[in-house]
């Protein structure tokens, strides 16, 4: 009885989803926050910077002097092995390679000094008090971290939205008398001589952005990190996302460093490693409009000290609050239980570098995604994030009263989807909306009772293109707030899109969207079914859909929710569609990756200027890159010697077809597994 079986599986499905949501969903036990600036406003910063600082380390080890650490690394079996190997391959004497290693290490290593930390403690206290209203930290998370640091090597994994992140992290740890981390930083900081050295002395170590084939560099780097980890000299901190997210969406995690810090566990060199997801949420990001310009192709200013000083202007503005949430430490040991057989490491000497086994690789990949999702879960969302989501669906502006009303509605929806919403207690909604608008007056303004996006006032006459870019800057800035809530709504929103376009192939369409968007959003590999079930569960829970037997149908009251969700994903669908159109219609054979971004951008500009496209977000290089990556991954486009070869042929996609129609085609061809029907 297939029918019964489906019902049965639906029933099991609901239970399963409920259980997994409960496991993942931290809503029930999220900690409260304490404002650490409050004390700073009431007592001497100098005293604070000079106070006794005596953190407890892993199993009470004594901290290791920077020089001693270098010696341990240079004399390690691991490094010596690679030095000999490189020497044999290159014909250079081992001494010379050893010297090279020593130079690499010198360039890389941190030189944490308590005096520099104290300097930052003082300077940042001053700066934070000017810039921010509150810096809020969940103290229970700090207590958990303190415990974890003493028991196991700890890896701190904060989200990355701003340059502020790692100074802020060290500042907080100093405040709570916790061991200061050593932080993996990109080499680009080293461009700023003085600042680079200051950061080095506050615990940063520097890694080159790319060193793909350089065996020696990799060996020095990984051994340096592992030595610190194994001995528990300091918590290791790095950004899983690899770089600051310019869009405020979490980025697809990078695995290199995570592999390095997990390996000592697999090799039995440490009993366990604790990964601590940390969510840093900014009410207003310092780099807000800078990011938008960067995404639009205004090149990123080279990090230079003077550039940073120019940022002084920033100091005169109000950036609202920061929330830093230290998540539950995640034990690698428990995660790996039953997934990785450690005894496969028994038959190979541990000091010889080896590519991780497939089992390990997929474990690390999975872990990285889980951690980023944990970061997302504990990101604090402000009311403005909801307002921005609504404004972007009404680019022509909204009545203030309508915006207020819909924001309240959206708040209810967000809360029932377990969003970590920081909505002021006991404040009338109108007050909440108006103070949000005040803080973000650079992005939205009210005039004549209508709220609309602010478009930067140009100096002098502008070309239509310049006007377009100005508008795009404000749309992308606004989108960076909407993006913060996407992780909450993403799954049900994809389901809503699937229902709208392909009501009889809902799962297949969902699965297609899931696959296509997995560069843009954090979708754990292999979780398609689980995510689908979660989406169903959430939409049913809020009454937007019903699931009579094996069907999914919208309810009478489901319309607002589903159409909001459709609007939420609309820019992404349109953006991907434009990219496809460009590849079909315009792209010449042999397009290089370098040419791709400017070319697709000018294609989109033409469409917008001609009045054929109203979506500005497609101008974002982030979306363009993600779309291309998705098409490459899905084998619609192939790369041959750095040149793109489009495989999207006219039968698969024509300008008149929406991307969703592509999904339909793909489904008919049976490329995706059939789930429903």
């Amino acid at each position, binding site marked *: 009885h297939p029918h019964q079986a489906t019902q049965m599986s639906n029933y099991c499905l609901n239970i399963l989803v409920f259980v997994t949501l409960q496991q993942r969903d931290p809503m029930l036990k999220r900690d409260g926050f304490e404002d650490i600036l409050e004390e700073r406003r009431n007592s001497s910063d100098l005293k604070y910077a000079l106070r006794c600082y005596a953190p407890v380390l892993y199993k009470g080890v004594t901290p290791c002097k920077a020089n001693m650490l270098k010696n341990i690394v240079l004399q390690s079996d691991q490094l010596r092995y690679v030095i000999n190997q490189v020497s044999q391959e290159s014909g250079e004497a081992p001494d010379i390679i050893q010297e090279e290693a020593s130079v690499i290490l010198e360039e890389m290593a941190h030189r944490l000094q308590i005096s520099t930390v104290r300097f930052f403690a003082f300077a940042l206290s001053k700066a934070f008090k000017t810039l921010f209203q509150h810096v809020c930290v969940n103290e229970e998370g700090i207590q958990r971290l303190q415990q974890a640091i003493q028991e196991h090597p700890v890896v701190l994994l904060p989200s990355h939205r701003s340059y502020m992140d790692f100074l802020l992290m060290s500042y907080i740890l100093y405040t709570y008398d916790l061991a200061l981390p050593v932080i993996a930083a990109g080499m680009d900081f080293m461009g700023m001589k003085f600042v680079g050295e200051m950061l080095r002395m506050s615990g940063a170590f520097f890694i080159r952005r790319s060193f793909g084939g350089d065996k020696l560099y990799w060996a020095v780097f990984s051994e340096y990190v592992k030595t610190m980890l194994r001995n528990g000299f300091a918590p290791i901190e790095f950004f899983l996302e690899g770089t600051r997210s310019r869009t405020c969406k979490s980025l697809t995690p990078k695995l290199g460093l995570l592999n390095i810090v997990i390996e000592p566990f697999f*090799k*039995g*060199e440490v*009993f366990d490693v604790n990964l601590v997801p940390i969510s840093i949420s900014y009410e207003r990001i310092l780099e807000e409009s800078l990011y938008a310009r960067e995404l639009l192709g205004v090149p990123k200013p080279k990090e230079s000290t003077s550039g940073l000083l120019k940022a002084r202007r920033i100091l005169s503005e109000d950036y609202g609050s920061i929330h830093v949430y230290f998540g539950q430490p995640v034990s690698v040991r428990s995660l790996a239980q039953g997934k990785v*057989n*450690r*005894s496969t*490491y*028994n038959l190979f*000497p*541990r000091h010889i570098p080896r590519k991780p086994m497939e089992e390990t690789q997929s474990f690390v990949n999975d872990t990285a995604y889980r951690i980023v999702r944990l970061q997302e879960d504990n990101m604090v969302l402000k009311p403005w994030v909801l307002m921005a989501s609504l404004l972007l669906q009404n680019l022509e502006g909204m009545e203030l009263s309508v915006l207020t009303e819909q924001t309240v509605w959206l708040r209810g929806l967000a809360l029932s989807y377990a969003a970590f919403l920081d909505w002021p207690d006991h404040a009338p909604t109108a007050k909440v909306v108006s103070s949000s608008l005040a803080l973000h007056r650079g992005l939205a303004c009210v005039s004549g009772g209508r709220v609309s996006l602010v478009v930067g006032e140009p100096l002098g006459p502008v070309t239509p293109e310049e006007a377009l870019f100005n508008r795009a800057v404000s749309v992308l800035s606004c989108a960076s707030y909407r993006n913060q809530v996407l992780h909450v709504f993403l799954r049900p929103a994809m389901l809503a899109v699937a229902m709208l376009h392909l009501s009889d192939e809902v799962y297949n369409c969902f699965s297609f969207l899931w696959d296509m968007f997995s560069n843009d959003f954090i979708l754990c590999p292999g979780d398609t079914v689980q995510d689908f079930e979660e989406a169903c569960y959430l939409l049913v829970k809020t009454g937007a859909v019903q699931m009579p037997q094996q069907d999914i149908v919208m309810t009478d009251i489901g319309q607002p929710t589903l159409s909001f969700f459709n609007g939420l994903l609309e820019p992404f669908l349109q953006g991907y569609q434009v990219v496809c159109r460009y590849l079909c219609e315009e792209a010449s054979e042999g397009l290089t990756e370098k040419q791709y971004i400017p070319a697709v951008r000018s294609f989109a500009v033409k469409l917008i200027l001609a009045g054929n496209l109203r979506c500005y977000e497609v101008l974002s290089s982030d979306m363009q890159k993600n779309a291309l990556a998705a098409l490459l991954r899905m084998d619609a486009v192939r790369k041959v010697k750095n040149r793109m070869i489009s495989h999207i042929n006219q039968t698969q996609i024509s300008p008149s077809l929406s991307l969703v129609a592509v999904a339909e085609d793909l489904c008919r061809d049976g490329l995706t597994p059939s789930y429903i029907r």
Partner: protein
Amino acid sequence: MHHDASPWSEIMKWNGWGYSDSKFLFNKKGQAEFTGKRYRLSGMVLPSLQDWFENTFGASVNHKSPPALNASAVPPASLNEAFVEDLKATGIPFSHEAEDRVFRAHGHCLHEIFALREGKKFERVPDMVVWPNCHSDVVKIVELACKHNVCLIPYGGGTSVTSALECPPEETRCIVSLDTSQMNRILWIDEKNLVAHVEAGIIGQDLERLLNESGYCTGHEPDSMEFSSLGGWVATRASGMKKNVYGNIEDLVIHIKVVTPRGVIEKSCQGPRMSTGPDIHHFILGSEGTLGVVTEVTMKIRPIPEYQKYGSVVFPNFEAGVACLREVAKQRCAPASIRLMDNEQFQFGHALKPQVSSIFTNFVEGLKKFYITKFKGFDPHQLVVATLLFEGDRERVLQHEKQVYDIAATFGGLAAGEDNGQRGYILTFVIAYLRDLGMDYYVVAESFETSVPWDRVLDLCRNVKERINRECKERGVQFQPLTSCRVTQTYDAGACVYFYFAFNYRGLADPVHTYERVEHAAREEILANGGSLSHHHGVGKLRKEWMKESISSLGVGMLQSVKDYVDPDNIFGNRNLL
């Protein structure tokens, strides 16, 4: 019909380790003492044991958990009458008295001893016991067993710690315990080739004593040598404390005679080494009673060494100690025995110091302690001790001793005297008695071992201890467990590591189950850290589940095919190993 030919069951405890007259107890003054006259510690008062015991386990001498005195109810014997009739005709003594059967239904695993103490019923015990007197008796018994399809379980010294002696509960045939204790003679000594031909039922200490009378020894001294038998050593691939000089059992045997359901396995000569295909001895060594009964063994003997000297070295920490042992192994200059005890065991050893009568000795002890901890800066909660035993002619022993102490010095080791060394080895023999004391006071304890490559020794020790602590916590053990380890053997490519693990089980409903789960987790941890399933205890039924993982399913298949050929009807049905 009762005929217990074994004197053992009278002088041995029926529900604990070793001799009935030897045990630890807390006297009326609350001081610990060790009764009897058999050991160096016998009759002595051990003033620090109580403190150590109470502090380590959170136990109290006021909380007693004495054994239940009622002998356990024994399932009735299910006899194969035809077999009994034929056996009677041979004149080989046998018994189906409850006491004889229960005595041979177990080894010395924690759960076995715990069940005996609590008066719990064994699910299955042997239905009868036979005492063959010689090889041809065994041949007759095995023939009759095949004829009447009864299950045979060979029994030697009964010191198994792998559930190897447990009767498979699912066995429906009559189970006959074949007790080899009467086959305990040295049949001949060949001084030209320095070998002795010995019946396999002989107990270790008797073998040494008898050989000593002729001026020889085997040098094979497993910790269980007071009670374990030669046949048992062969069947489990035993290892002796002094293997560095004499070798392990596989190095010592020249020839083995085994009675199997297919007949007797023997070789045609006693050549010291042969290239005649895979060595069939290696099917027998470690076969754990699944293929047949080892009846006679020809093994190497050596003249008794002229000179023996104990020694000890204190190291500031375990890491330094392991590094030193590794270097000693590298230079291939290991003394007859070299063992490294961790700090927990060092402290434990100290708790077993007998009362010192003279003020002077006390004073000297104090000075030593001052020198090591204050002057040399050793942390008493970190320092570890290596115990040494040198053997040979006097001059070479002294030379050897110097070499080892010189190496130790380069790792920060300080010579700590003969006395400390000797005490370390005494501990080995009395530790099993201490488990019985623990069980009187709500403390359960067990040991397990592994072998591991040198570079993983430290990681394995640390991770296994940590795993035990964690598992105890997670399983509701309310007191900090004792986890301790020592490196007991060194090899060119690795070491043997021995763990002790004990905890106070007050508040636990089923301490044995808890213990077993923790040991299981510890073994998983050992395997994940590059340790072996066993160095010398064997697999038995306790560790069967990991055999495939350990030797591959193909390997298991190879062993199975040997079993199927040698014993197609599973007469030797103890179900160990496979």
